[in-house]
Each structure stands twice: as structure tokens, then as C-alpha cells.
């Protein structure tokens, strides 16, 4: 387990979601071990030993957004409710503890909250996330909370503006220093993907790694596929995009085998997109600004539909990319994305993420996703500035 702890501390640093020196992970088999920042490791160990779970991450996020969300929350509130798909589907809500609630040993109260939720925010400490059966699961839950709080804070800023001392400065620092230019420059793709299995697997693996390395998506949020004759090669459910070796399922187009029961929950959406567009490859990820911008709608006040993420029948537009509603998996996403994605080669799903196509290989799909996210990023800053 020690190697697992080291691995995921490394991943938290590599994806820049946690602050260096402020990360700890605890895991228990027949003995409890905790590693990382000594103070946080103590808290992690004390909390995990009270839970019937295997692992726990405690880390200070590299951005103060979660902290700001607590400060912006009304008196008496005890959780935040981000509207993105990640939260709605897997987290439900994210409880928080204010600084004054954790003056003594925070472990018992943390354990109580983690007894019914996957992640908690603690003011002055950071994000605490539990993994029921693996260290990786604790890392995923940390990433999910980080993603959700990122999205919610930026959404709130757009609707409510800066409210707290230091917020504007922190935001400027985020914008100018934390964010990096997003591009496909310098990456190498096969121009025209052959039908060779090994080549396809190799290319999917490499593209998955690129998406994470370039900060386009977080490790676990997305899936990738390529069509090859009678087969669709697609990344497996719960697969980390930067570790796809051995995690790509070949699925027969005629469903003559169910080997792909472990394929991504978006298999049906990918299949329909291939059928509808004749594309060769599909890239799907959850870039944050696209998620944020997809949830903005001018008509919210007068519209009768409240479950916008799944019920909205309208096709909106973000820089030439259509935005549609649709739940993941066997929800409506597989119905709504295929008809609209062909024209632009990209589509955004409300609160969820981006699908892009490649007609011959991944270069086009990757560049498309970069362009969509860059547009949404710029549009976000433009709108925020306009509001200010």
C-alpha cells in the first residue's frame, strides 16, 4: 500500500490539484499507515481509523476556491451543492466544516460526515476524501470534489461577483499564474489511424495521457474510442485516461459478444456518434470551463424546465459548438449528442463535458477539444469582466 500512497501523492502534485507539502494519505490493511505532511497525516490516520473504509486523502487544494465557497455560504449552511454532473451523480452534495467547528480534534466530526459522504471540505485544512476499498478511490473522490468546487466557485463568481476580501487577488493569481495556456502544439498524433489493433490501442493510450498532461481533463473524467471495421475500441468504465494500458475494450459492432460489459458507460453514445457521423475517433472529457459555460442560460428565469441537465430540449451554442442536455450512460445523452455533433465536430453536454470527433485520427479531436475549452475559457473571462 505504501507504493499506492506514493503514487497518488505524486498524481495530486502532477495534476496540480493539491498544494505541495500539504498532502497526506492514510490507508489501512491490518495496520494503519499514513504518509505525507505530518499534521495532515495525523488527521488522516485518526479519521480513517474511525471508518470502515480503506483509504483517506487529506490535502489543501492548490486553489482557494473551496475555502471561498465556505466563506460565501450563508450562516447555518453546512454543505454546498454544485450543479455539475459529477456532483449530481456521484457526490450529491459536499458537506463542509467551518474553522470554529474544528478547533479541537477534527477526526470524530470528520468521520461522522464521511460516514455518509465521499468528500468533505474543512476550512483551514482542505479537502478530505475517503476511498471505501482503494487508495485510488480516495484520490478519485478528492479529484471529484476539487472539480466540483472549481466549477461551482467560478459559476458563483459569474452570477454574484467578488464578495470577500482577497478574492479578486486570488482570482487574478489563478488566472495569470495557475492557469496555463492550453494547446495541442508539440503533440504527435498518427495522421491516419490504421485498422491495426496494436496501433489503435497505442494511440488511444497516448491520447489519454496527453489529455491529462496538458491539463485538458482530470485523470478520471472522460473516455476515448476508435472505430475499426466491425469493432469499436473504447476505454473501460472507471479508467484513468492517463493509464489506459490494458483498459481498452474491443466491442463488436453487432453486439455478438458482451465482453465490453466493462466498457465506458458512454459506449452507446459513442456507437451512435460513429453511426451518425462516420467519424473514426471520439474524444470525451470534462474540461472545466466548458462545464461551467454549458450551465449558463439566458432563459433560466422565464423557463418552466427546472431539470435543465436532462430535460432541456433546446440546442444552445458556444462559439459554434452545440450545447445539449442529457444524462450520462443510459440517459438521454446518447440521443441528443449524435444528431448535433456532426456539423462542428464537437458538442458540449450540459454540466458534463465535451465530445469531439476525428475523421481520420486523434489530432482533429484533440485540437477540437482544446479549441472548445479555450473558447469557453476566454468567454468566461469576457463575461466576468463585463459583469464587473
Amino acid at each position, binding site marked *: 500500500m505504501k507504493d499506492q500512497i506514493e503514487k497518488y501523492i505524486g498524481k495530486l502534485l502532477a495534476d496540480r490539484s493539491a498544494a505541495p507539502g500539504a498532502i497526506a494519505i492514510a490507508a489501512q*490493511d491490518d495496520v494503519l499507515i499514513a504518509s505525507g505532511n505530518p499534521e495532515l497525516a495525523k488527521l488522516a490516520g485518526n479519521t480513517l481509523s474511525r471508518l470502515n473504509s*480503506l483509504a483517506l486523502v487529506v490535502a489543501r487544494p492548490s486553489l482557494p476556491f473551496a475555502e471561498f465557497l465556505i466563506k460565501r455560504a450563508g450562516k447555518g449552511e453546512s454543505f454546498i451543492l454544485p450543479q455539475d454532473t459529477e456532483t449530481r451523480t456521484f457526490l450529491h452534495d459536499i458537506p463542509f466544516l467551518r474553522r470554529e467547528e474544528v478547533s479541537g480534534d477534527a477526526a470524530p466530526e470528520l468521520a461522522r460526515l464521511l*460516514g*455518509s459522504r465521499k468528500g468533505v471540505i474543512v476550512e483551514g485544512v482542505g479537502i478530505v476524501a475517503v476511498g*471505501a476499498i482503494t487508495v485510488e478511490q480516495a484520490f478519485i473522490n478528492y479529484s471529484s470534489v476539487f472539480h466540483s468546487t472549481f466549477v461551482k466557485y467560478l459559476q458563483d463568481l459569474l452570477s454574484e461577483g467578488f464578495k470577500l476580501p482577497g478574492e479578486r487577488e486570488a482570482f487574478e493569481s489563478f488566472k495569470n499564474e495557475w492557469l496555463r495556456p492550453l494547446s495541442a502544439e508539440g503533440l504527435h498524433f498518427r495522421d491516419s489511424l490504421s485498422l491495426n489493433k496494436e496501433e489503435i490501442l497505442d494511440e488511444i493510450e497516448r491520447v489519454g495521457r496527453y489529455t491529462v498532461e496538458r491539463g485538458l481533463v482530470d485523470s478520471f473524467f472522460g473516455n476515448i474510442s476508435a472505430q475499426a471495421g466491425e469493432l469499436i475500441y473504447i476505454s473501460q*468504465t472507471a479508467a484513468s485516461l492517463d493509464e489506459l494500458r490494458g483498459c481498452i475494450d474491443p466491442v463488436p459492432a453487432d453486439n455478438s459478444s458482451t465482453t465490453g*460489459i*466493462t*466498457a465506458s458507460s458512454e459506449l452507446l453514445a459513442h456507437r451512435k456518434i460513429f453511426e451518425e457521423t462516420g467519424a473514426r475517433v471520439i474524444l470525451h472529457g470534462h474540461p472545466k470551463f466548458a462545464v461551467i459555460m454549458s450551465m449558463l442560460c439566458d432563459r433560466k428565469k422565464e423557463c418552466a424546465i427546472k431539470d435543465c441537465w436532462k430535460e432541456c430540449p433546446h440546442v444552445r451554442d458556444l462559439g459554434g459548438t452545440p450545447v445539449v442536455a442529457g444524462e450520462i450512460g443510459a440517459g438521454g445523452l446518447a440521443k441528443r449528442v449524435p444528431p448535433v455533433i456532426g456539423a462542428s465536430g464537437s458538442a458540449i453536454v450540459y454540466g458534463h463535458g465535451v465530445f469531439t470527433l476525428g475523421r481520420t485520427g486523434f489530432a482533429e479531436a484533440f485540437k477540437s477539444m482544446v479549441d472548445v475549452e479555450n473558447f469557453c475559457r476566454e468567454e468566461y473571462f469576457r463575461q466576468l469582466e463585463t459583469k464587473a
Partner: protein
Amino acid sequence: MFGWTGKLLHVDLTSGTCERREIPTEILHAYLGGRGLGVRLMREYFRLDPFDPQMPLIFAVGPLCGTNSPTAARLACVSRSPLTGTIYDCSAGGRFAWRLKAAGLDAVFITGKSVKPSVLSIDGDRAEIVAAGELWGKGVRETVAALKERGSVTAIGPAGENGVLFANIMMGEGNSIGRGGLGAVMGAKLLKAITVQGEGTTGTADRERFDAARADVMRLFRASPVIFGELGIAEYGTPALVDLMAQRRMAPTENFKSTFFAQSANYSGPAIRKECGARKEGCYGCPIQCKKASAKGEPLPEYETVNHFGALNGISDLHAIVKANTLCNELGLDTISAAATLSAFGEARGRFPDPAEVDRLLSDIAFRRGDGELLSLGSRRAAESLGKAGLSMSVKSLELPAYDPRGAYGMALAYVTSNRGGCHLRAYPISHEILRKPVPTDRFSFSGKARIIKIAEDVNAAVDSLVACKFAFFGATLEEYGELLSAVTGVEYGPEQLKEIGERIYLTERFYNCANGFSMKDDLLPERFYTEPGSAGEGIEIPPLDRGRFQEELQKYYRIRGLTPDGTFADASFLQKLP
């Protein structure tokens, strides 16, 4: 009280009495229902011989039954297994559980032995024991048909009447209370069937909260490829696993001599759909509808059944497998144990049975004639009797299902730590080792598995007490089911509390077993798995299990459970400290 009715029907077949009794609220809160409640109610009886007339046979529903909580119209049947000698429970769906709750009952507690074959008939507040008449000796289908006017039916077939150690109790819709031979316990009481109907409804304490929790569960079902994916179990039933297990090289073949059967595509999910016109069927109100039936309404076999009548016996003819399944349902035989016992018998004599012989032997087992007399005792006793004890692929006498332990090390550990013997459904590590839910784990590693198995056993003991279906947890978690439970009952339950309840139930079962002489010596896999490799292929090697590493992880498991190095309890007064 919301969720529970607080009532138990106490039936004494010896005196012919039926009496409604209160169940203490604190017991319901501490054990929920289903498996947990049944196990708790066994506290005064667990030392009795399974065929002792005073041995209870308990049917218990859960607090979610009767609401539209997804997959919760189920019950658990609890007693002591004549096959394994362990405490035993089995979860079953259909419509019986829902109607039992509608009759205002959380449980039926049946004890004693009838003077002549009888049927227990429950109709709302009324319950009576009536003569079974001509039904004794009849098959399940005819019995169910004869009693259908009385509501939902659960019945035994000839196998249960004749004391076959792996006889099932069959639900009228084709579901079964299987594996451990509780059909024989029912038969020993001369109880042919139970019928039930009721009109009651189950109240919900907080409807808005319930609706929100239900929506969360359904969203997770939709997000799960295993459940609602186009290749998942809602589409193809559990035979969706056939192709996957073949690809993973862990499909038990020819009595576990190998782990790949070249003809398995003949009985895969798509093949069954094509050949049998499989349509969706399922338990009352279940959104998944994983059961499949033929166009004529004949229940089609599950994954374990197709593999064991298929690969395990070297049979590739789908229609022969379907027929064997139908025959088992009709006779009231457990398909896994029946097929595995035939397979052990086949290897022992040097020839696996062909389809025609399978049919004949199944009938002989149910009626205990010819070779069937020996085979009716299950593979462990049969193999010992034939002087080839090592050919029984079982743990604690319960035949292993269709997941080769050499292909998933958590599964290997889970088989031996299961309180009811070689069962895949206690810790159910296939969920993460193969199906990647909730997250994937390395199937060829023991690392962390002792803790993972322990946690999963606790979780599933809670799930079996709710009583929900294991398949729901390929998508949802105790987070969402805790919300459903809190909304229905008005009592707050979170995942950690549910796991605590699960741990209490698991340890109670283990304590019962240890009190009856079980210990580490019984937590053993068959020797074959430590000495012989499985079938390699597609770049996958299936070496024998590392015995030293296995034992090391088992010792870790005992430490995590708070047990002695022999897997037993240091504290003899353990039960007295529990609610």
C-alpha cells in the same frame, strides 16, 4: 412505525398453530430485516441439527419492501444448512416478499414438524395450516399452479421432500432460495408450500426525501454499464458474463481442471437471446429486470447455471443446458451444486455426463435412486465416498460457482471467509476485480484484499438485510440506500452505520459457526487451486495460487476481524454484548 410492520408470524407445525407476535423495535433497528433479522432470530437455535423439528425456517423481508425502492422487493430465508452445517441465508426476489409485507409481516418463523404434508396459507391477517393433499410428490410447476388462487407461492419439489442436501425452495415466478439445501429443511417439516396474499401498504416517513434518493439511485443505475449498458444485465441477464469470463480466462471448465471453454459462445448472452428469444423478466417493481424468459415464459438459466451445466461438464449445447435448468427448477434442485456435483462425479469416474445422462441423473438425485442416492449428498460427501475427496470443488461443502479463484485473488479469499461456504455473493469481489465497480482492483494481487473483503462482507450483510439486490450495487452505494432507508423509516442511517450493522450480522454468523466447530481448518480452498494452473490465453497467465501468500492474507483478515489466528472468537460471551 414506518418501514417495518413490527410483526412476526410464529408458526408451530407440530401443534398446528399460527400466532402473530411483536418484534422488538430495537431488534429491527439493529438488524434491519432479511438476513440480519433472521440471523438474530436464530440465536437460541443455531446449535440444533438442521433436520431437528425445532430448527426454525425463517422468511424475513426488509423495511424497504413494499415501497418502490429499486430492487428491494426481496426476502431472506434463514436456517441452518444441511449441506454445509453452517448458519445459512439466501436472498430471493419475485413477488412473494412484497405480498408477505402486504400481509403485515416482517417475518415468518416456522418451527416444528407437521404430522402430514401441509401448506401454510397466509391471507392478510389470517394464517392457517392446511393439508397438502395430493401435492406431495408433485413438481414445482404443478404445485404452484394448484395453489395460485391463494396468492404468491413458494414451494419445494421432490428434491426437498426427499431430503436432497442441495434442495431449493422455489418461488412461484422461477426465483429460488438456493444453494444450501433449505428446501430439505422445509421438506423435513413436511411443509410443501407457503402461500401469501395481502392488501397492506408500507408507509414512508418522508416522501420528498424518498423521491430524491430514488432519483439518485436511478441516475447511478443509468451510469452503470453493468446494469443498464447496452451489453449489461438488464439486456442480457447474468449470462452477459459468459463472454467476459471466457476472455478473462476464469470460466471453470471440466471440474475446474481448466478455465476456458472454447464453445462457451454457444450459451453467451447474445446466443441465448438469439436462440431462445429471451425477453425481460424480473422481480416485482425492479427496474433492472435481469431475469430472462423464453417466448413461452420458461425461465432461462443464469450465468452460473449455463457455465456449470456447460463448461464445467464439457457440454456446449445451449438447449440441453436450458433443459437442465428447467428440470432443476421443476425438481427443486440448486443448479450450481447439482451441476458441480455431476462434474466431480464425472471426473471421478473419468467421463463427464452427456446431456441425456444429465437429465437422468438430475431426476435420480431428486428421487434419491441409483447413483442419485450418493449424488444427493453433494460433491464433498460423494467424492469422499468415491475415495477421491480432492475432486469436490467446494468450500465448507458448498460447491464453488462459476468464478475460478485463480483468476481473481479477492474471490479466492472471499470463498473461504464466506460464512455459508463457497459462495460468490458474500463479499462479491467480482464487482471490482472484474466489473470495475465501484473502482477496479488488480485481480492478480492479494494486496489490500483482506481489508477489502472484510468491508464488502459487512456492506453485503447490510444489503441482504435491507433486503436489496446485489446488482443494484454495480451502480448505487450504501450512500443512496441509506437515504432511502432513512426516508422510509424516519430513522437516520448512513453508510457507516449500515456497515456497522453488517459487521454485527457477519460476526454473529461466524460466532454461530465457530460454536458448531468451524475454524481455520474449514477456511480452505480445494487443493487443485494451489497446485494446478488454469488456462492461459490472450496474453493472460493463470498460475496456481501462492499458498503462502494466501495464508498470509487470511491471517490478516482474521486480525482485521478481531479473531484469533485460528479464525475463532477469544471472547465466548460475544453474543451477549450484542442487541
